[in-house]
């Protein structure tokens, strides 16, 4: 990438400061918004920001939130999210967000300030070894030590963040580099010297895959976040492929929205809290097509019992995801959209017929599993069931027909949101899947609302998670972001409580949310609107009011305290050993110590 760069103009090369070069490079990479928090080492960039109008800066209240906001922005738009934090604590606070983006393959570029080059290594004030700390937390990182590298590094960082399997990239910027004059160079047109991700699938592998799929008697399509990351066209192609084949389709937590939830060919989410039909179809299939998913442990359950009789095809843009956990017969390296387009073309070109009677018999089996109605619950009496709260939220937003984006925190509420809120389009669902970061949802919602000012953005939260980044209510107020925080308040860290109930003899060690704030007053003190639903009769009214208010809202939904999230594959169990509901909770007692060590 370094070879073909040339100065933009000789005048610029002499007159721009490093900070101005950074901003110009951001602009040339399409950055419109940057989430950040100032500090000593990045003051030159803040000074340059002050003197321009092209890039809008959103002042967060904590650097972790800046990264989550950039993630929400990136996931809801398909663009690269951008973050600016200072050295030392600014950078270390950002680390959780960076790892979150790494695990979920979200493109983020994070600029961190650094002490001037001559002080690096001297334990200077607010110095941290940022590139050392963030090396395993990022897809790649840079420390800029020469002004002449500055523009090239920023361009390269954006390319690395968005291409291949996307991810976070850190650029560590010593203060002297930001103050000194630096040459500006345009984004290069040449290939990177060493980094060249493969996006086009191998034609022979596609032929092998189609031959397997045509002969399948019990096929399944298992699609994940790679389809979302590839862009909306990949989701359209997934729909086309599934409909032309008539195959059942399941999505991972990260893939929700890649295939429409309303479609009869959709089996729902799979995995630990996935549907009965999706998990049993995964277990019983004879050919599995994995597109853009990574056989995560939440999905596979016990590995040696995972889908034991299937021949597997795995398409992923990251070759290291293939054969990592589950050996597959047909590996395909490529971008999900390009793989799907190639599969569709080859399916049409291939003369052999599908085994339609076998497929029909497979669907009869799946429909039998479906008839268990594994997500049923009974809403009786005054106490609000958390499932019912999410379901009503979904139904009411659907009825209103507004463009709706959902973020979540982490825990039971997250799983209920995944189970009961149906997504028909990609990029409408942002959740922390891989890292499982409590505190993700509120700042992510902020980022989504910045990108989509007129949309309805709801953070489905738990009362414990929301407190992890509650300070961002201040950011919502400052920028008048009408984000709705929908708290399923059961006064417990619900997922911890559930595991303690099922696996640790009901000893609820430190999982009670004691001394909670009054969320209505909390909202009011942050210039937002607070409301509360205490009984089932309040629920619809509160949801409608929450949506109607054109301000940030905290809706405190008081739900049943001891509700568990089902279906559930206990840790260390196989897909066909899942527990459907409370009446089978005894099944968890059989979890072995080997199972208990799993998270």
């Amino acid at each position, binding site marked *: 990438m370094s070879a073909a760069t040339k100065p933009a103009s000789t005048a610029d090369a002499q007159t721009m400061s490093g900070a101005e070069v950074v901003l110009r490079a951001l602009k040339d990479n399409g950055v419109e918004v940057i989430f950040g928090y100032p500090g000593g080492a990045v003051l030159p960039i803040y000074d340059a920001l002050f003197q321009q109008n092209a890039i809008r800066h959103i002042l967060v209240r904590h650097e972790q939130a800046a990264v989550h906001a950039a993630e929400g922005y990136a996931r809801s738009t398909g663009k690269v999210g951008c973050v600016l934090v200072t050295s030392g604590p600014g950078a270390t606070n950002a680390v959780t967000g960076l790892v979150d983006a790494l695990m979920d393959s979200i493109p983020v570029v994070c600029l961190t300030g650094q002490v001037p080059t001559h002080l690096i290594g001297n334990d200077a004030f607010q110095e941290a070894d940022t590139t050392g700390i963030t090396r395993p937390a990022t897809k790649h990182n840079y420390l800029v030590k020469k002004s002449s590298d500055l523009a090239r590094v920023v361009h390269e960082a954006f390319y690395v963040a968005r291409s291949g399997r996307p991810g976070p990239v850190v650029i560590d910027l010593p203060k002297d580099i930001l103050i000194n004059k630096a040459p500006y160079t345009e984004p290069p047109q040449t290939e990177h010297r060493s980094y060249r991700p493969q996006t086009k699938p191998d034609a022979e592998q596609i032929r092998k895959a189609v031959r397997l799929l045509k002969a399948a008697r019990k096929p399944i399509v298992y699609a994940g976040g790679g389809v979302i990351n590839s862009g909306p066209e990949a989701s359209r192609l997934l729909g086309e492929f599934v409909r032309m084949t008539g195959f059942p389709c399941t999505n991972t937590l990260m893939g929700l929205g890649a295939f429409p939830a309303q479609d009869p060919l959709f089996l729902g989410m799979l995995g630990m809290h996935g549907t009965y039909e999706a998990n049993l179809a995964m277990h019983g299939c004879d050919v599995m097509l994995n597109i853009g998913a990574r056989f995560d442990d939440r999905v596979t359950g016990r590995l040696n019992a995972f889908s034991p009789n299937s021949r597997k095809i795995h398409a992923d843009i990251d070759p*290291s995801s293939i054969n990592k956990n589950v050996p597959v017969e047909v590996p395909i390296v490529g971008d999900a959209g390009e793989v799907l387009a190639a599969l569709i073309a080859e399916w049409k070109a291939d003369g052999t017929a599908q085994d339609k009677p076998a497929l029909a018999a497979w669907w009869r089996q799946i429909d039998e599993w479906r008839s268990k109605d594994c997500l049923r619950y009974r809403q009786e009496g005054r106490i609000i069931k958390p499932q019912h709260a999410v379901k009503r939220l979904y139904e009411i937003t659907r009825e209103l027909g507004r463009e709706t984006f959902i973020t979540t925190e982490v825990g039971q509420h997250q799983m209920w949101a995944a189970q009961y809120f149906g997504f028909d389009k990609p990029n409408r669902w942002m959740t922390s899947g891989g890292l499982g970061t409590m505190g993700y949802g509120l700042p992510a919602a902020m980022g989504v609302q910045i990108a989509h000012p007129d949309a309805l953005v709801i953070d489905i939260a738990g009362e414990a998670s929301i407190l992890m980044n509650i300070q961002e209510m201040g950011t919502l107020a400052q920028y008048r972001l009408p984000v709705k925080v929908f708290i399923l308040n059961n006064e417990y860290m619900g997922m911890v409580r559930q595991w303690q109930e099922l696996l640790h003899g009901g000893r609820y060690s430190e999982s009670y949310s004691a001394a909670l704030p009054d969320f209505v007053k909390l909202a009011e003190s942050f210039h937002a609107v607070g409301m509360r639903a205490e009984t089932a009769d309040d629920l619809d009214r509160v949801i409608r009011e929450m949506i109607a208010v054109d301000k940030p809202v905290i809706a405190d939904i008081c739900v049943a305290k001891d509700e568990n999230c089902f279906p559930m594959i206990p840790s260390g169990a196989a897909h066909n050993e899942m527990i459907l509901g409370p009446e089978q909770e005894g099944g968890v007692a059989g979890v072995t110590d080997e199972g208990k060590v799993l998270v």
Partner: protein
Amino acid sequence: MSENGNAQRAATIAVLVENEAGVLARVIGLFSGRGYNIDSLTVAPVDETGRISRITIVTSGTEMVIEQIKAQLDRLVPVHKVSDLTMEGPHLTRELALIKVVGKGEHRVEALRLADAFRARVVDATTESFVFEMTGAAEKIDAFCALMRPIGLAEVSRTGAVAIARGPRGLN
């Protein structure tokens, strides 16, 4: 990793990397972070401009783990090329060692006799010590050190393996 093939094998992996700050830390961090073994690792620039370095890693694991190691190395941004020399046909492996032996009288004579048999060169000598230089496979150096131990082996410095494929084909 309980699937087919729990058998461990050794692998000598050559990695061509961009010679930039932190690249070795990325490679080592990858091994420690993901729990892979490093039996030895050597690194030095190998092209005329000094922009490309070659890292030779000797590791071991199941077939699936070794495939993972290669894929994980290959996706590091500054990595140009990853080659599993063990799997890609015949190759040569050499290691260089500097071996200090301290002793007097008969021990000195015996040390020189063995060094001659192993084709080790004397690169430093005093009245009571020798430093031998030898190259060869790791086993040969192991054997030489084992013989020198009773004679007065004082110190060993080894490079770890460097390796290259036999025949005309180059790695780049």
